[in-house]
């Protein structure tokens, strides 16, 4: 077994929201240098591993949050505490809140883009920053982790697409309503959300991307995207890219 393939012991694995699970893992976390990094989970009888972001970590282990969308995440949801989870670790660049001088920063997460923002919020607080957090979900049943962010001392705002809780609409609507369009931001969520946040904000920010991956560590070029400074691999030069690098247009 290669040294970057690690065995974790599952401490807990429970249903947090509709189809969403939180799994606490005991094992090596010394490789984690930045929030927003990820690991790649081995799935029995599947050929490729499954990338999942680090939500939180301490010296004993780490926490991930995942949504059941197919074969691999289903298998993860069926694991019991005490069982092991094999992961390839040390993946991705992660968020770098330290590059911004501003004290007040905006964290925007949608659906299963929310988890990495939790570790990020903690890091921001450690750096003396004041995170404003906007969380967007499809509906009431999908919501998780609002209280966790509030307990950290973050200012938390909520939107749901159907208005079943919080503001009805999108996270970008909240940004406008609450006048948060000039804060340096960090965003993770589905592509349309990232684009909306990027369009809505007047400030620079960092965006965490997703792509179907072959390897997760930079070998296959499966996950590339084009940026202002040339092609980048989401798994290696990303998943976090600067808002100044994307090739989108503002309208």
């Amino acid at each position, binding site marked *: 077994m290669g040294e970057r393939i690690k065995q974790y012991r599952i401490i807990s694995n429970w249903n947090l929201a509709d189809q969403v699970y939180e799994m606490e893992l005991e094992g090596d976390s010394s490789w984690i240098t930045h929030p927003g990094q990820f690991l790649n989970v081995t799935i029995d009888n599947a050929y490729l591993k499954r990338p999942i972001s680090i939500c939180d970590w301490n010296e004993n282990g780490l926490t991930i949050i995942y949504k059941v969308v197919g074969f691999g995440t289903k298998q993860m949801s069926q694991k019991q505490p005490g069982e092991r989870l094999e992961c390839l670790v040390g993946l991705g660049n992660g968020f770098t809140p330290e590059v911004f001088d501003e004290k007040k920063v905006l964290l925007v997460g949608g659906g299963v883009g929310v988890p990495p923002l939790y570790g990020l919020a903690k890091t921001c607080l450690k750096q003396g920053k004041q995170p404003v957090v906007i969380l967007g979900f499809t509906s009431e049943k999908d919501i998780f982790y609002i209280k966790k962010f509030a307990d950290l001392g973050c200012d938390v705002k909520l939107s749901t697409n159907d208005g079943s809780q919080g503001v009805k609409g999108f996270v970008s609507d909240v940004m406008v309503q609450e006048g948060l369009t000039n804060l340096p931001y960090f965003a993770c969520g589905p592509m349309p959300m990232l684009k909306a946040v990027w369009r809505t904000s007047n400030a620079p920010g960092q965006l965490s991307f997703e792509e179907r991956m072959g390897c997760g*560590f930079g070998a*296959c070029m*499966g996950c*590339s995207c084009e940026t202002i400074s040339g092609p980048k691999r989401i798994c290696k030069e990303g998943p976090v890219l600067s808002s100044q690098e994307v090739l989108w247009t503002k309208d």
Partner: protein
Amino acid sequence: MDERLKVTLSGWELDNPVIPASGTFGFGYEFADFYDINILGSIATKGTTREARFGNPTPRIAECERGMINAVGLQNPGIDKVISEEFPKLKQVYQKKVVANVSGFSKEEYVECAKKMDAQDIVGILEVNISCPNVHGGGMSFGVSPDTAAEITRAVKAVTTKPVYIKLSPNVTDIVAIAKACEEAGADGISMINTLLGARFDLRTGRPIIANVMGGFSGPAIKPVALRMVYQVYEAVKLPIIGIGGIASAEDVIEMMYAGATAVEIGAENLRNPYVCKEIIERLPSLMDELNIEKLSDIIGRAHQ
């Protein structure tokens, strides 16, 4: 280093037959994070073209049973940057020669790439990919007809003194005819196989998973096809063969050598387990003991005896 693992490709003695396959190992240095890549027999570098290429739109990857589809489409920084940036980075962590994989969309492009590679000390073998099924290069690939395969072979041979290995596509009716045409045109060896053309569709939407619909299918699932083709070509030509397709274990290496391969390349499996080449090299000696194999070179083509 175990003397029993040594094999020779066109006069070049490799410490062992294990070579990561083109496109699944970048330009090598990424893997130095995982282990000392000098233990490898060699490295087949990422398919290189004359100009820089971004490749195909994403998604480019789909999972299959015991395999995967890729439609990367030859993303690479172009030959000049490969020579000026990638090879120097590789040399910092790797002291051996490479199998330099080149590709092209015209005879001229192959020739230009071959000329430039010819001047590079680090290049031990020039591996000419005439088969990449991912790229819309205006119709069929050079690799599907004996005539065009021979044409590229001759053109490349004319501009390089490096051993030239033609990498064959499996998506053909008669792979033997193509291998023979390459042999007659002066090829020094054959690399085979490239990926099979495959597709997957999303259960929820019904849409193709790969943006380009089709892509190159590889991994353990394709091994029986690769073994069959290596066996057929070994029967028909006298050239050394680098066997490729679905290799994931030391057992697979042995089986591919029985079929007729002198060395092997390991592709998709590097993506799923970055340590696989190291694990195979470490496992080979004890497996050889179990199977009463004295030297690996003894078993090349044993299935034909």
